């Protein structure tokens, strides 16, 4: 049996937990060889979970803030599987779920957000672009906070917004090469959202009311399938877009 990503090589940053882990599992289920990257040991666990399900994955310890480590991850993908078809940049700052007002953002917090989300995307683009073939995919995970702003997560919102600007330009820049570049904005049950629930217990019932489908998405069941689609042949004419996978929460386009 073949899957929509059969034989393709997909590199995922921030693969150790949450949406990143879900993407790795779903891509492997769809037939891809997965290069799971992350700065900690939990990316290794993700690769093991893929293998336990009969999929193909390797783990490359990678801090996306460090250009040489991203270059090493790309080189390892090429050495291990002979090609690189897609990059999904999912990594975010460990401070992403910390709730704070704009006026309270300190230099270190801001710098960490910029480094992981934005500089990480730049490192991925710079390292992968020479190796991505026609039909290649570059996908940046953004956020509803980027589309609408956020009182509690303004730094996260800003860097996720920045990724949208980068993606739109890269889509134009890389279009003649046959490489598509998109963003995906998920509403998913993540640690950031759990944290927000703890800080604001009214948020959970309010979200249920405002989301037409009446629930927050599950990373593997609701978000990852959309990513698999964007990496598949069926999405070859989609580029420069922010695909919103949020149960209908945001309908502003």
């Amino acid at each position, binding site marked *: 049996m073949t899957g929509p990503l059969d034989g393709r090589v997909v590199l995922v940053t921030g693969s150790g937990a949450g949406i990143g882990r879900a993407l790795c599992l779903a891509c492997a289920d769809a037939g891809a060889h997965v290069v799971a990257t992350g700065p900690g040991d939990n990316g290794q666990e993700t690769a093991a979970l893929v293998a336990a399900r009969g999929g193909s994955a390797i783990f490359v310890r990678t801090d996306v803030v460090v*250009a040489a480590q991203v270059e090493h991850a790309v080189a390892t993908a090429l050495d291990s599987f002979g090609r690189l078809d897609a990059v999904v940049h999912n990594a975010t700052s460990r401070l992403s779920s910390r709730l704070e*007002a*704009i*006026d309270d*953002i300190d*230099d270190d917090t*801001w*710098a960490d957000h*910029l480094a992981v989300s*934005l*500089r990480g995307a*730049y490192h991925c*683009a*710079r390292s992968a*672009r*020479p190796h991505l073939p026609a039909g290649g995919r570059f996908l940046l995970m953004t956020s509803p*906070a*980027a*589309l*609408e*702003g*956020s*009182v509690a*997560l*303004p730094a996260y*919102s*800003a*860097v*996720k*917004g*920045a*990724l*949208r*600007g*980068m*993606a*739109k*330009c*890269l*889509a*134009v*820049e*890389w*279009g*003649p*090469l046959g490489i598509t570049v998109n963003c995906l904005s998920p509403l998913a049950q993540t640690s950031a959202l759990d944290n927000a629930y703890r800080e604001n217990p009214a948020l959970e019932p309010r979200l249920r009311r405002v989301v037409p489908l009446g629930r927050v998405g599950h990373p593997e069941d609701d978000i990852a399938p959309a990513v698999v689609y964007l990496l598949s042949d069926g999405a070859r004419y989609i580029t*420069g877009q922010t695909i919103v996978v949020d149960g209908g929460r945001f309908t*502003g*386009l």
Partner: protein
Amino acid sequence: MARGRRVPRPALASAIAVIVVLGDGVPGDASHALARGLRQLGEEVVLGARVTDGPEADDIVAIRCAMSSGHEVAEFLARVEAAAHPVHAVVLVSTGVTAPAPGELAALDADQWEEGVEAPLQRTLACFQGSYRRLRGRGGCLVVLVPTMALVGAAGGAPWAAVAEAQRAMAKSAGRSWGHEGITVNCLAVPASLLAAAPSAEDTATSGGSGGGTGLDRPGLPPPSLERSPTMDTEVAPVVASLAARAWAGVTGATIAVDGGIWMTP
């Protein structure tokens, strides 16, 4: 201050501070054109930029603002108020990507990335924080000028677009956060060519490469629906001045395109 209480804006004897977040703020650039346009409308304008001080050639009063922190920007605004009148509007302007010139993202080196993206974003945060600290308690408005290119994409524009889209997201967050203090935050999207120092022919020739070419606007676009591109002093400045007036006190977090009707983005 209690949520829901709107602070009245000062109607008279107030000033607009124009701060150059990305670019140098030199005579002849977009920030000076905007300042001149605002002044022609009767507004008192002070320009803040990293590398200038004192009156410039076109008599626009400029005060150095390094934008190193929110505290430093708030102090700059205090200096503006000491030299002029209470500030009721702060305008953040990017005057282009002269360094680095438009080019493929994959060809950008680490220093260019820092200079073109992370440093301007550091200054952006300082400007938002400093503006808030000066305007809170009395109200006012923050206006961010961004290139339309950032909304729709252009080859070679990724660094600047990343900055602008981060600013736009921050404007929405600020709009949501500061509304109860009577502070509005909105963006104006204007043609990139209007903001930027146009790249030289040599820049364009050397930054092309294997991708879709480079430039500040997408090739092949139809002409503006209004049959002309806007000018900074006669068409963008009046919209900025209008956003600082009471008529727009109920609008925040919005992006308004002043591009002659090219993209009409949703």
